[in-house]
C-alpha cells in the first residue's frame, strides 16, 4: 500500500477538536454499534477525524469477535434507524462480496470440519450420553457454520503444561444468524494468550493459560479441531476444582478473520460469549422473555458439542453420564458408570444469591474452592431435591425434569443449574415431566404425564406447547 504524503497527514492533524465536543460513552458505543444516524452520526464522525483520543477509545472498545463475520452473515437485525448517507460507498460492494465470502466460508468450514473429525478419532470428545430412560439423544450434524464448543473445564484440564491448540468456537445461538467462520485471512491473529494466562495465576490449578486460541498456528481456518485431549485425570474433584475457577480471563480473545465467539463455561456464571455487538436486538428480545428466577443466562449460551464419532466409546473424563434413580434422584458418573454421585440442582439455584455475594469480593484461589465445597456439603443436607423422572444430556449440557414441572438446566456438566419454567401464552408447565428429548442443543422436547408436549427451539428460552 502506498503511503499518503506526510504533509497530508500533518495537515489532517492540525485541526484539533473543540474541548467540549467529545461524544459521551453512550454515543461512542452507539457509533461503534452503528446505532447513530443522520446529523448526530456526522457530528461524531467529524469529531473522530480530529480526535485521536476518541478514536482510540472506539478502537480499543471493539468487541473481540470479528466484526466481519456479522457483516458477512448480514442476517443480524439492524438497528431501527440506519442512515446510509455518507456510507453509500461502503454498503453495496460490501453486501455483494460478503455474500460471496460467506458462501466460500461455509464450504471451507464444512471441509475443515470433515477433516478435523477424521483426524480426531482417538481424541476424546464430547460424547452424547447413552440414552437414559426415556431420553433419547440424536443430534443432527451441526449446521455448516456451527463449529465445536469447548468448555473451559476442558481447557483447564488440557492445559496442564502443554499448549493445546483450540480453535475458536462459534456459538450458535437461538435464532441468531449462523455465522460462518471465515478462514484467517487478512488481519493476523492477535492472540492475547501469552499474557492472559497470568490473569488467573492465583487461580485454581489447571487454569487455562495454555490453550492458545492459536489461529495463526492452527489449521489456518477459522475452525480448528477442538483439542479435547483432556488428560485422564478422572477425579471428580479435579474436575470440580477446575469448574470452580472463577476465571475472568480465560476469555481467549482471539482476533482473527474468523467467526470466533469464545465460549467459556465458567463455574460461577453462565456461558458467556464475547459480545456480539450487533445482535443487540436479538439479545434484547431474549432477555425480555427470560423468567428471572434463577435463570442465569445472558446472551447466547449454547455449547455445541462435536458430532459423535461413530464407533467411539470412550468418553471424555470431563463429561459425566447421567441417570435418574428409581427413587427419583438425579445422579451422574464421571467414570463411565462405575461410581455415581447424587446431584441436586435445586441446591445450586437456591444458593446462587449467596454465592454471588461472596464472589464479588473473593479472588480466585484454591482456598475458595475448598471453602465452597464445604458449604456445598452443608447445604446439601438442607434442601430436598425434586423427584426427577427424566434426564437428557448433550455433552456438558444437561436437562433434568421431574415432578411438579421441575425442569433444570445445566451447561457445565452439573455444577451450576438454573430452573426453567416453560410457559407459553401465560400457561406454564406444571405437570410431572416424564421424558426429555434433545435433538440438538437448541431443540428439545419435554413430555409430561398428562400428555403435554412442550418444545423449544432456542435452547430453552422460549417454549411452545404442542397439542
Amino acid at each position: 500500500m502506498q503511503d499518503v504524503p506526510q504533509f497530508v497527514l500533518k495537515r489532517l492533524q492540525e485541526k484539533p477538536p473543540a474541548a467540549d465536543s467529545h461524544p459521551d460513552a453512550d454515543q461512542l458505543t452507539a457509533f461503534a454499534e452503528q446505532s447513530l444516524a443522520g446529523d448526530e452520526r456526522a457530528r461524531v464522525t467529524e469529531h473522530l477525524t480530529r480526535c485521536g483520543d476518541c478514536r482510540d477509545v472506539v478502537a480499543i472498545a471493539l468487541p473481540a469477535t470479528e466484526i466481519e463475520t456479522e457483516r458477512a452473515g448480514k442476517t443480524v437485525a439492524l438497528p431501527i434507524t440506519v442512515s446510509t448517507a455518507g456510507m453509500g460507498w461502503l454498503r453495496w460492494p460490501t453486501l455483494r462480496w460478503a455474500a460471496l465470502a460467506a458462501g466460500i466460508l461455509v464450504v471451507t468450514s464444512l471441509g475443515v470440519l470433515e477433516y478435523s473429525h477424521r483426524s480426531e478419532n482417538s481424541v476424546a470428545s464430547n460424547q452424547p450420553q447413552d440414552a437414559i430412560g426415556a431420553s433419547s439423544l440424536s443430534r443432527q450434524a451441526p449446521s455448516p457454520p456451527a463449529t465445536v464448543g469447548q468448555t473451559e473445564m476442558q481447557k483447564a484440564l488440557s492445559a496442564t503444561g502443554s499448549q493445546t491448540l483450540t480453535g475458536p468456537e462459534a456459538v450458535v445461538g437461538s435464532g441468531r444468524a449462523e455465522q460462518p467462520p471465515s478462514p484467517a485471512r487478512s488481519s493476523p491473529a492477535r492472540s492475547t494468550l501469552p499474557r492472559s494466562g497470568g490473569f488467573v495465576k492465583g487461580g485454581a490449578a489447571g487454569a487455562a493459560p495454555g490453550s492458545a486460541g492459536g489461529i495463526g498456528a492452527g489449521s489456518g481456518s477459522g475452525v480448528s479441531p477442538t483439542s479435547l485431549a483432556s488428560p485422564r485425570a478422572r477425579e471428580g474433584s479435579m474436575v470440580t476444582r477446575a469448574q470452580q475457577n472463577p476465571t475472568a480471563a480465560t476469555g481467549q480473545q482471539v482476533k482473527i478473520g474468523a467467526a470466533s465467539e469464545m465460549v467459556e463455561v465458567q463455574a460461577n456464571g453462565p456461558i458467556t460469549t464475547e459480545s456480539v455487538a450487533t445482535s443487540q436486538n436479538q439479545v434484547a428480545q431474549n432477555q425480555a422473555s427470560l423468567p428471572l428466577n434463577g435463570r442465569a443466562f445472558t446472551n447466547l449460551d449454547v455449547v455445541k458439542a462435536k458430532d459423535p464419532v461413530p464407533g467411539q466409546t470412550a468418553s471424555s473424563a470431563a463429561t459425566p453420564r447421567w441417570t435418574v434413580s428409581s427413587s427419583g434422584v438425579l445422579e451422574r458418573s464421571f467414570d463411565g458408570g462405575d461410581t455415581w454421585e447424587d446431584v441436586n440442582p435445586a441446591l445450586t439455584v437456591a444458593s446462587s444469591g449467596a454465592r454471588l455475594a461472596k464472589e464479588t469480593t473473593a479472588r480466585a484461589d484454591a482456598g475458595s474452592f475448598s471453602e465452597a465445597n464445604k458449604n456445598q456439603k452443608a447445604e446439601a443436607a438442607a434442601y430436598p431435591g425434586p423427584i426427577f423422572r427424566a434426564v437428557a444430556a448433550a455433552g456438558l449440557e444437561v436437562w433434568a425434569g421431574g415432578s411438579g414441572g421441575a425442569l433444570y438446566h445445566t451447561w457445565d456438566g452439573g455444577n451450576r443449574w438454573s430452573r426453567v419454567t416453560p410457559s407459553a401464552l401465560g400457561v406454564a408447565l406444571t405437570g410431572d415431566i416424564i421424558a426429555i428429548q434433545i435433538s440438538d442443543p437448541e431443540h428439545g422436547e419435554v413430555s409430561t404425564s398428562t400428555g403435554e408436549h412442550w418444545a423449544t427451539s432456542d435452547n430453552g428460552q422460549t417454549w411452545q406447547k404442542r397439542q
Partner: protein
Amino acid sequence: MPDTRPISAPVRSAVSELLAELQAKSGCEKIGLSGESLAAVLCDVAAKYLPAGATQTEVETFLLTLRVEELALARACAAGHNAAWEIFLTRYREKLYQSALRIAREDSAARDLADTLYAELYGTGTREGERVSKLASFTGRGSLEGWLRTVLAQEFVNRYRRTKRLVSLEEEGEEGLQFAAPEPEPVPSPDARLESATDAALAALSSDERLVLAAYFLDGRTLAEIAGMLGVHESTISRKVDKLAKSLRKKILATMMQRGMARRQAEEALEVDVRDLRVDIRRSLAQESPSATFSPKRENPVEARTRGGPGVQANP
C-alpha cells in the same frame, strides 16, 4: 438523575405515548423499576440528546432506538435494587473482567482497571448521602456491554495518556538542560499553494474517509479494527485505503500545477520532509496521537521519524 434541562412537551407526550410498550419491552417492574421511574428516565434521555425543537414523532422514533431493557436494568441497579444488581452481576461481571484483560493486556493493569470501574458501577461515592453509581449515566444508546467496554477504554486511555504526557514534558525539560540550545534553525514554512491544495483535497473527502485516513495512517490501526469501527467489511477498508493513498497525491499535485507550479516543483513541495516542520508536528502529535506502547499497532511512520527528532536536533 437530575437533569437541569427542562423537559419539553413533545418529549413528555412521546414518552407517555410509548410508555406502555417500552415498559413491557424493558421488563422494568420485574427488576424494581416502576413505570413512573422509567418514564422519568426516558424523558431525561430524550432531552439530553435531542435538539430542543424536536417534534413528538422524532422523539418517538428516538425512543424506539433505545435499548430499554438494558437501560432499565442499569437504572434499577443505580437506584440500588438488589434483584437488578444480581442480574447485572450475573450477566456482566465476567465480561467486565474479560474486556479489561483484553484492553489492558496485562494482568495487574487489567484487574486494576476492572476493579476501578466495578467500584464506580456499584457506587462507592456518595452525593448528599445517596449512593452514586456510574450506571446512572447509561442512556441506552448502545448496548450495556458495549458501554462497559467503552468506559473501560476511556479509563485506559486516560490513565496511559496522562502518564505519557508527563513523560514527554519531562523529556522536553531535560533536553533544555542537557543540550545547550543553539539558535533554532529557521523552520521553512510550507508552500502556501501546497497548504491550500492539501486542505482542498482533504475537505473533498467524506468524514468517513478522513476517519479511515486518520485511523490507518496516524493511529496505525489495522484494517480489521477500522472495519469494526465503521461496521463494514475489512476488504472495503482495504480498498478505501488504497484509493486514498493513490488519489490524494494525484489530486494535490494536480491542484498545485493548476495554480501554476511545475510538476517537479509540486512534487518536491509535496515530499517536504516533515522533520523540517518538526516543531508543529511534535506539538500536534503530543496532543492527538497515542503512544505505540499501549496498543499493538503498525509502526506509525510519522511518529517513527519524529522519535528520532530530539537526537537529531541535539547534534550540531
